């Protein structure tokens, strides 16, 4: 006699909204390939709103896991899903504007965006390594195609590199899942935590599994030494896609890392912390140093995002819940800044043949004062200069790392921030102090500027009164199991 599994679909309602919306958008784009994109964009925003609303509805649920322990319903997942929906909305609007400007109809973009977000929303709720693997694959496959979407030479080349290295990383992720399964006879996050606690002595198999999982997930968030794809892909992909993936992938994968590292392998925290510290320090140093040498703003932002991944990871050496709240705050402030920065770059670069070299930004303050001001706010936040959210975020993650006793890591982080300030401020200086050259190809339309003011205001408000969301994030950092 086999008991039928309980089907609790309400537990993954946000994910279902996103996948359902994606399927409808895909069907519609098949029938109306060259139709106007505005209905698609509006539909995408509606699907995102529905997903966000159903995530909020899950906030006060008593149960902790559903669907046979495959997904967890906790506040961490809810907060992350809300952040993802917000990033998705900006991604959809920026994409709409980008394709509309060149009258380049790619209505599959919206379906792919929703599929990627569905995978991410599943990843932040995953309570089983099988679900982690499947969700990572769903989001990656959608992102590979989104990277190639304009079918120009640069984007397809970027998509090929992203795909080959991403698939390579997935193999390591799956090997990690297999090793963890071998060590504990279970793939569930809770089951792993139970199987691994109280076992004396060293557990080489579980440790190998955990390290392989870190490698697989580290690829997705571009930690050194798994960052090789990042500059090419961030530069080659259409700017709205870069804006979306640089923010959303980091949110989703870092939240999955919280569950994998803090819960499943929580008992191995002492063994894993040195490895995490090395990855974090390497990313902060190499990301900042290589960013200085760049002559292209998208490429510079790509290397800076490598460094930012290192900053976020530095909070993972602390197994306390302050660490989780700090990582969440950093992820939110980073997302707002990076979506805004790539959005402004998209407006400045002038159409689908994106020109993002430094010369485009020379003297921008005179020609496009609004865009220059917006970009400056985002760059200051990425550099971590008060009164922006980036400063508070750095204080929080370094605080978490210090309380775990990793002060050398904090020292490296502080030095990397100084190096970082140099290349961020150089772009601001370029915009403010130099004479403009060549023709102005920046987009003149007012609506995108208005939309991009939202992340700018977010960054400043979170920098001045971080208290508005920090208690919320601390509540989200309490994992109920």
């Amino acid at each position, binding site marked *: 006699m086999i008991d039928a599994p309980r089907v609790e679909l309400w537990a993954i309602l946000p994910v279902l909204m996103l996948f359902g919306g994606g399927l409808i958008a895909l069907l519609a784009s098949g029938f109306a390939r060259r139709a106007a994109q505005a209905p698609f964009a509006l539909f995408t925003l509606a699907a995102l709103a529905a997903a966000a609303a159903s995530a909020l509805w899950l906030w006060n649920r008593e149960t902790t896991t559903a669907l046979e322990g495959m997904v967890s319903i906790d506040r961490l997942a809810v907060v992350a899903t809300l952040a993802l929906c917000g990033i998705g909305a900006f991604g959809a609007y920026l994409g709409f504007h980008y394709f509309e400007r060149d009258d380049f109809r790619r209505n599959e973009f919206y379906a792919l965006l929703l599929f990627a977000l569905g995978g991410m929303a599943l990843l932040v709720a995953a309570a089983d390594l099988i679900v982690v693997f*499947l969700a990572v*694959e769903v989001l990656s496959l959608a992102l590979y195609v989104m990277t190639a979407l304009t079918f120009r030479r640069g984007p*397809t*080349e970027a998509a*090929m590199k992203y*795909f080959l290295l991403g698939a*390579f990383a997935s*193999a390591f992720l799956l090997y990690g899942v297999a090793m963890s399964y*071998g060590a504990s006879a279970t793939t569930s996050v809770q089951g792993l935590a139970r199987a691994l606690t109280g076992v004396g002595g060293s557990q080489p198999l579980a440790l190998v599994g955990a390290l392989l999982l870190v490698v697989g997930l580290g690829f997705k968030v571009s930690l050194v030494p798994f960052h090789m794809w990042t500059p090419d892909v961030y530069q080659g992909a259409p700017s709205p896609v870069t804006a979306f993936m640089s923010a959303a992938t980091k949110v989703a994968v870092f939240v999955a890392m919280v569950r994998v590292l803090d819960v499943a392998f929580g008992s191995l925290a002492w063994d894993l912390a040195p490895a995490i510290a090395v990855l974090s320090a390497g990313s902060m140093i190499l990301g900042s140093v290589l960013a200085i040498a760049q002559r292209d703003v998208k490429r510079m932002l790509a290397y800076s995002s490598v460094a930012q991944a290192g900053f976020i990871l530095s909070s993972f050496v602390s197994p306390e819940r302050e660490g989780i709240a700090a990582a969440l705050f950093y992820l939110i402030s980073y997302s707002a800044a990076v979506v805004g920065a790539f959005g402004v770059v998209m407006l400045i670069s002038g159409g689908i043949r994106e020109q993002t070299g430094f010369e485009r930004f020379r003297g921008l303050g005179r020609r496009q004062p609004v865009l220059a001001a917006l970009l400056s706010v985002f760059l200051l936040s990425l550099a971590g200069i008060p009164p922006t959210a980036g400063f508070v975020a750095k204080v929080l993650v370094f605080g978490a790392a210090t309380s775990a006793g990793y002060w050398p890591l904090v020292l490296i982080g502080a030095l990397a921030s100084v190096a970082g300030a140099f290349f961020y401020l150089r772009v601001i200086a370029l915009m403010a102090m130099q004479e403009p050259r060549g023709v102005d190809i920046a987009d003149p339309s007012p609506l995108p500027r208005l939309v991009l003011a939202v992340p700018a205001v977010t960054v400043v408000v979170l920098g001045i009164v971080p208290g508005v969301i920090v208690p919320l994030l601390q509540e989200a950092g309490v994992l109920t199991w």
Partner: protein
Amino acid sequence: MRTPVAYFLLLSAILFSLGTASVLLRRNALRIFMGVELQLNAVNLTLVAFSRMHMELDGQILAFFSMVVAAAEVVVGLAIIVAVFRRTSTTDVDRASVLRG
């Protein structure tokens, strides 16, 4: 007499290393991709071996999932490689060099 599980694990580790080596050493996108497929299949062998060691089925089910994912990866991956080939008439990853720096 049953073959010890360790043999299967060793074989899959060797296959995984061969796949890794071919990803790192080959310059042709298709060959790199074949290396990735070899890695994924090596992991499937590991999963099935562990499944037998623990005398339960989760590992075998996971192996099915990974086969489906590998098939989906082939669909997307070959489409991207074909798109690159149409633009550059080569699948050599070293020639894909519009993006450098």
